[in-house]
């Protein structure tokens, strides 16, 4: 099956307009397979993506571009119990996860 999600990159463009992630520590809740993560993570200081779907997280780890390794991390975690200390992030992104 051949499908494309957002070939015009409207999500990435609008996100860029709404949030400046440059130099920030970013938490992405509902990162899935990282499709949107790749659009901003190079500017961020550090990106942490969480999701409950292990299969999607596996894809995200495999497809993580080499220039993002070491600053982009993925974890199986629930947004109701975030495994992070207080004030760990300057920005959070809820990706279709509310």
């Amino acid at each position: 099956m051949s499908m494309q999600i957002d070939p015009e990159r409207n999500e990435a463009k609008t996100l860029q307009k709404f949030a400046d992630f440059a130099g920030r520590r970013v938490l992405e809740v509902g990162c899935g397979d990282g499709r949107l993560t790749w659009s901003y993570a190079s500017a961020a200081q550090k990106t942490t993506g969480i999701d409950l779907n292990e299969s999607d997280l596996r894809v995200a780890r495999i497809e993580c571009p080499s220039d993002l390794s070491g600053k982009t991390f993925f974890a199986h975690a629930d947004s109701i119990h975030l495994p992070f200390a207080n004030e760990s992030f300057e920005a959070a992104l809820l990706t279709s996860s509310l």
Partner: protein
Amino acid sequence: MVHALHEIHRALVDGGVLIDLRPLSDRRPVEIASARGSVEAGCLTDLPKALADDSAANNAMEQVNAEGIFSMEQTETFPVFYTWDTPNDFREYIADEWSNFLQLDEETFNRVRSIWASADGDARVRLRMKMLIVRWRKR
């Protein structure tokens, strides 16, 4: 959902930014699109779970807004397209991924198939989703 927003509030620094990005329950047109243009074939129908999720998300954001822990700074809607090579690919994806949320009725599918069959060779099936993006600031 409100618990999750409280957790995110805890994990953010003072003045930190929260971006809420999600699809809205809205008209979801299915089109046959080619280089020459697009033709609408019908719409997908939101199932009760999609409507309930949308309402719950809106209520959660309203609640934290009322609590005063986040302040809303900017909001916008914009379209996102999903495209498939063939009507069967489209139907298969809906059944595999969205069967709890969206319904493709037989009449709409038949129209999609019929329009696609007589369209240009580069024609694809395209679904238009309305997205919401909101920027909140931690107080």
